[in-house]
């Protein structure tokens, strides 16, 4: 019997429908693919390398415990090499080529600024830990969630420490001339004023300026009681700390996390200059007075120790953040499956996901999930095994 064109099309359609119907049965055993965009190489890779240790441990643990409803997690990694263009290529490959269910990352703001709109257009759920405020927007990017603080929260915590804990009312705010520096000063100064502080000095200085004594003398003569530097440039920050030391000026320096980095430490003229320097950090991964950490963190540290994960060259909060992220995504999938809309619906109602880094909550109108009060200041010179002591004044 000759086969007409209509019959051929009909049988092809039936075959397609049949294969489509058969798919879930096969897919039920397939691994769940999670896209992951860390910067593992390049100039901004230190964060990514730390986060990666936590991610790998979490995925191993989830898979060893039977995966997500019997399905293993397959982490599809694309190294962004600290470059936004490579991050965009990686994101496109993950969504179009690899067909991942959800993407974690990028882990640096510069790369996320390029990737977030792209993933939003592709309707791929995304979780990232980047601080730039505009990287979440429930209207423009309804499938994008942040499981870390925003720059607003970081600044507010530093301001709270200076004004409420240290009781300093006259403040000097300084930054370098980078986009981050100037934007940060412009955002934080009104917040300080709203808290009743008097900003007696406000300045943007070229990070390559070798001599910051004029700036610090101006702060001193204006009566500053605290210096708040906002820069990620270790050279710039160390010059502020060194100049304060040379001047013998006993004033606290409160600000960006880089104040407590190994690069800043390496540039100090004398180790004692690092005293009274308080960078940002996060309460659940800090030592309270007496050297204690929360129970959840103690258990996590034990797990890191038994997995032989090195903490000497990285920061505990990076590892903790990495560890929490796939666990949070896995919890969503365990409850509602790997479909994008269901994952987003679940995350929109997430309340107090118990992370080591902090409890994460989202609502349909709020995709910044990190709690304000967990952002704290720490003693820069107290780094031990990747964690710091809480700054004085927070109590136990």
């Amino acid at each position, binding site marked *: 019997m000759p086969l007409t064109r209509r019959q051929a099309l009909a049988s092809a359609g039936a075959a397609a429908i049949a294969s489509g119907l058969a798919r879930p049965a096969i897919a039920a055993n397939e691994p769940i693919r999670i896209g992951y965009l860390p910067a593992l190489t390049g*100039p901004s890779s230190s964060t990514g390398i730390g986060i990666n240790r936590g991610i790998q441990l979490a995925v191993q643990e989830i898979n060893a415990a039977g995966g997500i409803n019997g399905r293993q997690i397959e982490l599809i990694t694309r190294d962004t090499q600290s470059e936004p263009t490579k991050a965009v290529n990686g994101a496109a490959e993950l969504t179009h080529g690899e067909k991942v269910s959800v993407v974690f990352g990028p882990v640096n703001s510069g790369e996320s600024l390029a990737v977030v709109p792209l993933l939003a257009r592709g309707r791929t759920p995304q979780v990232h830990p980047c601080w730039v405020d505009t990287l979440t927007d429930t209207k423009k990017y309804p499938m994008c969630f942040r499981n870390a603080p925003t720059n607003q929260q970081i600044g507010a915590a530093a301001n709270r420490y200076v004004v409420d804990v240290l009781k300093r009312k006259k403040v000097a705010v300084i930054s370098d*001339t980078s986009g981050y520096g100037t934007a940060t000063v412009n955002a934080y100064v009104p917040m300080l004023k709203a808290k009743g502080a008097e900003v007696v000095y406000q*300045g*943007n*200085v070229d990070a390559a300026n*070798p001599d910051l004594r004029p700036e610090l003398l101006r702060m001193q003569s204006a009566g500053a009681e605290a210096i708040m530097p906002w820069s990620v440039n*270790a*050279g710039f920050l160390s010059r502020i700390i060194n100049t304060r030391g040379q001047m013998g000026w006993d004033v606290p320096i409160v600000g960006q996390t880089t104040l407590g980095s190994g*690069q800043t430490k*390496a540039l100090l003229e004398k180790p004692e200059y690092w005293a009274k320097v308080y960078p940002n950090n996060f309460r659940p991964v800090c030592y309270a007075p007496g050297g204690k950490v929360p129970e959840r963190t103690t258990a996590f540290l034990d797990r890191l120790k038994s997995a032989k994960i090195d903490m000497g060259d990285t920061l505990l909060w990076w590892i903790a953040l990495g560890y929490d992220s796939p666990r949070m995504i896995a919890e969503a999938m365990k409850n509602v499956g790997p479909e994008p809309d269901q994952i987003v619906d679940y995350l929109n109602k997430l309340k107090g996901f118990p992370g080591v880094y902090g409890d994460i909550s989202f609502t349909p109108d709020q995709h910044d999930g990190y709690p304000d009060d967990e952002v704290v200041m720490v003693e820069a010179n107290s780094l031990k095994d990747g964690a710091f002591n809480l700054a004085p004044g927070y109590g136990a």
Partner: protein
Amino acid sequence: MVESIVLSGVAIGCIYALIGVTYNVMFSASRVFSFTAGTLGMLGGVLGSLFIARAGMPVVVGFVLVLAAGALFGVVTEVVAVRPVLRSLEQHLYVLSTLALALMTQQLTAIEWGTESRPFPRLFDLARGGFDQQFWLPMAACIAVIVGLELLYRRTLVGRAFLAIAEDTYAARALGLPERRLRMASFALAGMIGALAGFAGGEMLLAFFGNAPMLTFYGFVPVALGGMGNNRGAMVAGLLLGLFQQAANFLVGGIFASVAVFTVFILVLLARPEGLAGAAVQRRV
């Protein structure tokens, strides 16, 4: 306050002056303003830190290697970025070629060395004090270069040959001077001076890839103010620039200090386009 302005002003002025001289030495031999001068300064700091602080070499060995690396970079600049565009000098293609080489080197340094400032070692084991080595080392380097160049240009045959090709390339070549080799030697010498500037100012500027554009810009100001190819003018203008910049840092501060520096720079050039120490070019009629 005055002491602080003078100390850091003169020290940073000496570094600018040395970068200015680096521009001049390359310019005299080729009529090309090579924008790799600031990159050489940056490399002096980064390589000094690499050899001495990281590799643990003795200071003298590290210093000699830095000068050698500077000379090598100077020669590479001449071969890669200057020689190919010499024939069409009037098209000013050297701006593009030398800037491209400078940017490539800067980015490579950022990738291999990192984007963070790193410490430059204390060269002499002396206690920190008011007139610290971070201030007097650039001054000493500056004096050594002035005296060295004067002796080279006035007392040696090679130095006179340098002056000859600077004065008139074609006539020098007609007299049998090996113009190409002399030009390469000039670029090697400039490379050493630029690297010395970064090395002597290393403790002040730190080993930081971002010093390259800063030195390229501020090092060009003494050249423009002091007169193209005029080393003495560059020295004086460099010192004045350092002092003025430091005074502006104290008086107006922050980014406004840079605005003040460039405002004065433009005003001076409007009043004296040939520079403070330069002579107006005579036009043959």
